[in-house]
């Protein structure tokens, strides 16, 4: 663990990423305390520019809602959707990849054709269609994101399992009489954890982008204030009020950037390159 942290912190970007993410998390947690009122409430006159009133440093939107409060509550939605949909995608992708890789043969063929199908289908368009048809809500959004983002997980896990499966220690486990389930759980999957963690951190970032894009198109949960929704609502008034789309965009950019930096740091820390050669 100490070793892990040492390798992680050697990547300066990764540390910056962690700090940014920590701030976003704190903001999301504190949002209801700092802004006890609903972010949907009109608090001032519309189109109040930033820095013109101390109480509303980021100004107000077309309906006089506090942009700052919106940003804080938006952090909740982004993190929630990013995290839950990634977990859901992992829950679909890992078993499919593990089964395909471990058992090979027709099971592999069938599962991989299935995966390939989902990978070929334009994912964002599918997400739009799914959310539109099943009606926008936090559940349909999470489900749609999970459905379009599991294929890379399945492929990664399958590839790892496939190479681990022919690894000699797995063969030794087979010979020593361990059962398939035990071998997958104890010998194979623990050794795929690091690439999965790295991929997962990047998937959270992608999921946040996806959620914000859906909300931007008007497919967000109508009861939740999200960054994408704020930008979408501000799109038509961009010429009058640049700040309405600018600040939520920066928030998304920073959060996604932070997660990507963390992903790189994790990669450095979990998969130290065995670059040194003996000779």
């Amino acid at each position, binding site marked *: 663990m100490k070793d892990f942290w040492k390798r992680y912190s050697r990547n300066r*970007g990764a540390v910056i990423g962690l700090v940014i993410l920590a701030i976003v998390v704190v903001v999301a947690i504190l949002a209801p305390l700092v802004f006890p009122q609903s972010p949907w409430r009109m608090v001032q006159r519309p189109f109040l520019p930033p820095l013109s009133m101390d109480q509303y440093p980021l100004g107000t939107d077309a309906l006089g809602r506090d942009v700052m409060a919106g940003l804080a509550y938006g952090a909740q939605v982004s993190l929630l959707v990013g995290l839950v949909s990634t977990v859901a995608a992992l829950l679909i992708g890992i078993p499919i990849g593990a089964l395909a890789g471990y058992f090979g043969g027709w099971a592999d063929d069938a599962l991989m054709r299935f995966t*390939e*199908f989902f*990978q*070929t*289908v*334009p*994912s*964002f*368009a*599918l997400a*739009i*269609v*799914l959310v*539109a*048809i*099943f*009606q926008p809500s936090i559940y349909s959004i999470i489900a749609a994101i999970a459905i379009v983002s599991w294929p890379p997980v399945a492929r990664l896990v399958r590839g790892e399992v496939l190479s681990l499966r022919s690894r000699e220690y797995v063969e030794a486990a087979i010979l020593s009489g361990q059962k398939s389930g035990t071998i997958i759980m104890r010998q194979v999957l623990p050794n795929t954890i690091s690439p999965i963690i790295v991929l997962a951190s990047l998937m959270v*970032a992608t999921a946040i*982008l996806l959620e*914000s*894009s859906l909300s*931007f*198109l*008007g*497919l967000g949960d109508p009861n939740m204030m999200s960054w*994408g929704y704020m*930008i*979408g609502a501000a*799109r038509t008034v*961009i*010429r009058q009020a*640049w700040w309405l*789309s*600018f600040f*939520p*965009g920066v928030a*998304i*950019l*920073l959060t*996604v*950037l932070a997660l*990507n*930096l963390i992903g790189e740091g994790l990669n450095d820390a979990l998969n130290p390159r065995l670059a040194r050669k003996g000779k």
Partner: protein
Amino acid sequence: MLRFILMRLGKAVIILIAILILNFFLIHAAPGDPAAVMAGEAGAADEKFIADLREQFGLDKPLLTQLGIYLGGVLQLDLGFSYRQQMPVADLIFDRLPATLILTLTAFVIALTLGTIAGVLASARVGKWSDTFISTLALLFYATPLYWAALMAVLVFSVYLNWLPGFGYETVGANHEGFARLLDIAKHLILPATTLGLFFMAVYMRMTRASMLEVSQLDFVKTARAKGLKPGIIQRRHIFRNAMLPVVTLAGLQAGQLVGGAVLTETVFAWPGIGRLMFEALAQRDYNVLLGVFFVSAAMVLLFNLITDILYRFVDPRIRVG
């Protein structure tokens, strides 16, 4: 080669049929009875009319028969009817398709060219400030929401600087002809294509850089150095060509996202393509159009994939000859 293309086409057809089946079930999952919706659109919602509609569209038949009818329709390029627009979905889409093709292809070319050039430059100066600069820029592009970048581009280049048009496909009412019209379209294309390409540029840049660095560690590069070849030649002939293989594969895989991204870009720039059509259909909950666009964009992705597969075969002799 022909055999390979035919095999790939066969696979593409299977995937398309699978998408159609998915589409069919999604239509059925869509809220509201299609007949009632249609009747509502037609402005005559009495029982008799709805029942007639059901019969006319075969909605009273078993599900599998309906699926057959649906697939048969698609074979004749019938993707259903849009009551909101009072037009067949296929006509709507084919009207808009050229604009999307121009946009996505331009974005793809911009992203691939600039991305690989930047990736090669960064890998050649690994660890130096120019590498740091390019890599940081790529990281930023990678994390920027596409639609937001588009909005900011409109704000800066169109609203404040007034350099480029930020709206539409060509200047409305200008009535340009011939070359002047092309120029006009090209001017309108710059902002949407660039912003759509940004994310992918970042992806290709990162991939190229990583791949160049990895290939440069391989044994045959040492062989090339031992021959006394100049670094420039080694870089071009030995490292770059090998490094491009995974980039080409990735470019094929990313095609789907490019088409998906077009929805956002076209929405912001009011670009009259199928992405914009999708956005309009969303606002009106016009499910037939929605699913039609989904199907056609999937077909486009398959086409992109086919092209990159063929490209790959030309680059890699192991697949071509072996």
